[in-house]
């Protein structure tokens, strides 16, 4: 299948992500849409490693590595300095994992969005702290095994809905995207780039290592997350106008769960309960989009 995307890449081959890493795919697509006038702020996450050790760099744009919880604040400062120099053309991006976004970096992110700082915050979501060895985050889904939710202590809390939390800030633009839908992702990044103020992209990025899946089904799993309504594709403008970008045919969540080692302990009953939860969330989203 031929993708309708520019050929130019801003990432060098030979980076050190695991085979099939969704986070690496997500960055590649993101930069295709943003181009070279981009400054990237990366708090601690798998990408602190993927981006390369001194003196090499995986990316063809300037990168500022920073402390785990500081993405929102550091990007605010970079923007302020560029503005002071009259450079309003360069796009500033904070690129963080789910831990750096949903958990430890949430305060700085919330502050930056409340101030409506002019940058794009991208969360690539692999649903756990992968850099430190697969520990649970508030983005880890209900039912998942991680190294801190082992055995029968598998996670029994829902995944935090980060997009809704940011929508509550009346953020000018928030959208979900997936590595399995690159054209949709590309369009959203391009759209975000053209908007002024705070923008948030939540990119679903499968992690073969942490999810206990073969690397070759990484993209397939990401696609199934969308097709089962576990990770709906939608966008919200000004915290008000919802648009759902993809209407699945209603695959059952258990198809998605069965392929992943991190869910293998779940019973039929657990899976039924998760199916109900997913349907609830989907109904709520449709309601917000004015569809029910």
């Amino acid at each position: 299948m031929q993708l309708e995307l520019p050929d130019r890449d801003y990432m060098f081959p030979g980076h050190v992500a695991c085979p099939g890493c969704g986070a690496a795919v997500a960055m590649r697509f993101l930069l295709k849409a943003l181009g070279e006038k981009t400054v990237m702020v990366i708090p601690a996450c798998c990408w602190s490693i993927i981006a390369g050790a001194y003196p090499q760099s995986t990316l063809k744009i300037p990168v500022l590595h920073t402390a785990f919880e500081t993405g929102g604040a550091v990007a605010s400062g970079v923007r302020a300095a560029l503005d002071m120099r009259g450079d309003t053309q360069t796009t500033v991006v904070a690129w963080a994992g789910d831990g750096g976004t949903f958990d430890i970096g949430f305060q700085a992110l919330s502050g930056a969005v409340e101030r409506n700082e002019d940058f794009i915050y991208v969360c690539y979501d692999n649903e756990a702290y992968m850099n430190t060895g697969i520990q649970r985050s508030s983005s880890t889904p209900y039912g998942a095994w991680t190294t801190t939710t082992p055995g029968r202590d598998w996670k029994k809390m829902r995944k935090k809905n980060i997009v809704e939390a940011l929508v509550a800030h009346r953020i000018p633009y928030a959208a979900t995207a997936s590595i399995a839908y690159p054209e949709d992702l590309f369009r959203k990044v391009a759209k975000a780039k053209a908007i002024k103020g705070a923008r948030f992209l939540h990119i679903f990025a499968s992690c073969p290592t942490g999810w206990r899946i073969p690397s070759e089904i990484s993209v397939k799993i990401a696609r199934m997350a969308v097709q089962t309504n576990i990770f709906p594709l939608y966008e919200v403008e000004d915290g008000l106008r919802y648009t759902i970008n993809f209407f699945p045919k209603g695959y059952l969540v258990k198809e998605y769960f069965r392929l992943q080692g991190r869910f293998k302990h779940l019973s039929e009953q657990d899976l039924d309960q998760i199916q109900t939860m997913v349907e609830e969330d989907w109904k709520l989203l449709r309601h917000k989009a004015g569809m029910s």
Partner: protein
Amino acid sequence: MKRVLEGSHSVAEAVRLAKVEVISAYPITPQTHIVERLSDFCADGSLSARYLRVESEHSALAALIGASSAGARSFTATSSQGLALMHELLHWASGARLPIVLAEVNRALAPGWNIWADQTDSLSQRDTGWIQLYCETGQEVLDTTLQAFRLAEHVSLPAMVVLDAFFLSHTYEPVDVPGQREVDRFLPAFNPRFRLNTETPCAFNQLAPPDVYMEMRRSIQDAMEEALAGFSQMEEEFSGIFGRRYGAVEPVECEDAEIILVTSGTITSTSRQLVKELRSRGERVGILKIKLFRPFPAEIIRQCLKKARKVAIIDRNCSFGAGGIFAQEVKAALCDLAERPVVFSFIAGLGGRDVTVADLENIYTQVRNQEVPQRESIWAGLHPVPAPELNR
């Protein structure tokens, strides 16, 4: 132009004159007057800076790490709990070699809540790679803030200008506020060697394995040494333009002194009063005021103290389990001397307790009357605590 200014406002005036480009701050007593005055300057146009009203001190410093990396002259102010919250990023700022300037108002750490003068907050950050400059007067606060930018940008390290809560931050004094032209001469625009730039894309602060990390750390130590070596040259230029200088340390009547009080911050002013009185009674006493604490001017301190018989170090701080922090550093500096003075370490004035001329005289008398200290550090001015309370 001479004006009567609050200590906090002296900081703000210097920041305005330094043409800072990005300010990011969070309120905490007794530092708030600094950032409020800076807000006024930005609002009325006398300073054209971007001012980020962030949601925590942690983010205040994080934002400046971003701003400074992108090449902007950057400033923040904080105190006590706020500085403690910044701790992780204090290391980050020096490791990233960013010449951020921070005004730190020395305030006690909780619990119990105490907003008054105490140096333990800044001194617990002594190993973070920041230049630390302690001030005594409103004029010194203004001048030191300008010097801090110059020094920081010269060696690519962040710098902390430290002033005592209330005794300095909220005290009005006549201060000579220099003109913009003179300040521009002393402090040209910030032009870093490296900055985030899409023309020449680089990665900053990336993964540094064992085979490179140590050299990076060594370069920070080298930069500190350069800051120490360059301090008097910087002051030379400063005094050439403004007619004032302070020295990394200031010896007062030390030449023939048998006993020297070692002080920092506003306790120095009170000590000056005492020394004047004691000298008039024929006592051979002097003061060594320490202004530059990081880098630590060990050699100058050795030279100033080596001829004294006894040295009394007064610390408005405590490293629990060890003692006064200035005392530890001064003792370490003196131990290389074959013949050295006897060192007495006093802890006084914690949590804003007044240290009066009478208190200092008490300390002096103790030192004069004893050949060696009775304890590692002596707590001056302690109220008697009822024994049962202690034992419970």
